[in-house]
């Protein structure tokens, strides 16, 4: 029951939680070291706080939206790509752990004529799962990435019937098939699912990022769609698409590092 005008104070206080969560803090700092080679650890410590601060705000904005339908201000860059995705239907929206995935998906579902299927890591807490289910928008379905067998068929059906499937493509969780990639010069793995789905359904992948710009202010950044052209060499086709995707990721994360909510090191290789 926080008065809204006191939110910045509450957020500043609670985001100090980052001091207590060692593994998360170290994960962010290691990623920052790779994003900003040669950066000092002390500087990255404060950058790390900025990441947690933004994360706290994103969660607060998402919960406020779900509880009271408080909508933030939105800016769109690359609107023509969003229009293209909306007009064609049957597409994959590939994004990253940035801004607010949930908030972006809800806004998209509420303003789109197409059915949106959001794929996300399974929610382990039963109460949170119940809350998510009770507060989801109309025309919007959540699928959990752990149900890999049936999920692939469901998603294929959703895309071929004109739906839009939203997937986060910057992190691989256990049990998910992955493709090798290079991110900020380090070996990394990214989920194979969206690329396999795009190839099977013959639909483009639209890189879309939700970036928090300030208090209750977000920007949707849509980039050129990635077409996966089939050739005799499937691996090369994937490689090309993955390289395009990691290029987009690097360009957005490189400038908006304080928005990348990856609390585990993205690369097994220690940063220099």
């Amino acid at each position, binding site marked *: *029951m*926080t*008065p*809204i*005008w*006191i*939110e*910045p*104070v*509450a957020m*500043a*206080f609670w985001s100090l939680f980052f001091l207590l969560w060692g593994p998360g803090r170290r994960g962010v700092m290691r990623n920052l070291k790779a994003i900003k080679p040669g950066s000092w650890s002390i500087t990255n410590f404060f950058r790390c706080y900025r990441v947690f601060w933004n994360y706290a705000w994103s969660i607060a904005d998402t919960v406020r939206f779900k509880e009271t339908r*408080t*909508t*933030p*201000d*939105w*800016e*769109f*860059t*690359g*609107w*023509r790509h969003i229009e293209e995705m909306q007009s064609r239907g049957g597409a994959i929206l590939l994004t990253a752990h940035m801004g607010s995935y949930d908030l972006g998906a809800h806004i998209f579902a509420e303003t789109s004529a197409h059915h949106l299927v959001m794929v996300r890591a399974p929610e382990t807490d039963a109460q949170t799962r119940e809350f998510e289910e009770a507060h989801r928008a109309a025309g919007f379905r959540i699928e959990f990435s752990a149900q890999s067998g049936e999920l692939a068929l469901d998603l294929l059906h959703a895309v071929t019937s004109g739906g839009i499937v939203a997937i986060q493509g910057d992190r691989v969780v256990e049990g998910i098939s992955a493709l090798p990639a290079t991110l900020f010069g380090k070996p990394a793995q990214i989920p194979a699912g969206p690329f396999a789905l795009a190839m099977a359904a013959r639909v483009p992948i639209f890189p879309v990022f939700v970036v928090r710009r*300030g*208090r*209750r*202010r977000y*920007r949707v950044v849509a980039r050129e769609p990635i077409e996966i052209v089939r050739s005799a060499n499937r691996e090369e086709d994937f490689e090309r698409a993955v390289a395009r995707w990691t290029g987009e990721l690097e360009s957005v994360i490189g400038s908006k590092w304080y928005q990348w909510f990856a609390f585990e090191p993205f690369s097994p290789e220690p940063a220099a």
Partner: protein
Amino acid sequence: MKWLPSRHHFALARLIALMMLKTTPRPAADVDRVMFAVDRHQSTAENYAVSILFTAITTCYIATMLPLAAPLALVSALPLALIAIQILLVAGGLIVRSIAANSAFMMLCAVAASLYFATRTTWVRFAAYTFLAVVALNAIAFVVMWLLRDRVRELELRCAA
């Protein structure tokens, strides 16, 4: 659109917004579309300004009660003020489970504390005077906005059209 009075909470902020309404905010060059929410808690500047003012006066009031020299007391009082605000928030929330009521409760606490510290002879009275002056200005702005309510509604409708 950014300066619609409806996008502000306090009367003083709404009055400032009304005066700024004629300036057209330009989105960044790389922005193709914008979607603005009409919500009285939307203003970043207003929320941060009130939060900073509230934190600052709480820090001053706690500092004056510490047995330390003023600069050191102020530094020590800041984390204590953050904790005190959290306690006040939770206490208010436990009494009445309403954001509006909790908000009013916190403001009443701040006004009561300011009235008390305004009677002191030390430097803290200036902090109290500042807060009470802002409260008084807000009250005047409330009357002005009430008198202008029809004009404001008309201007906002023109913006939304």
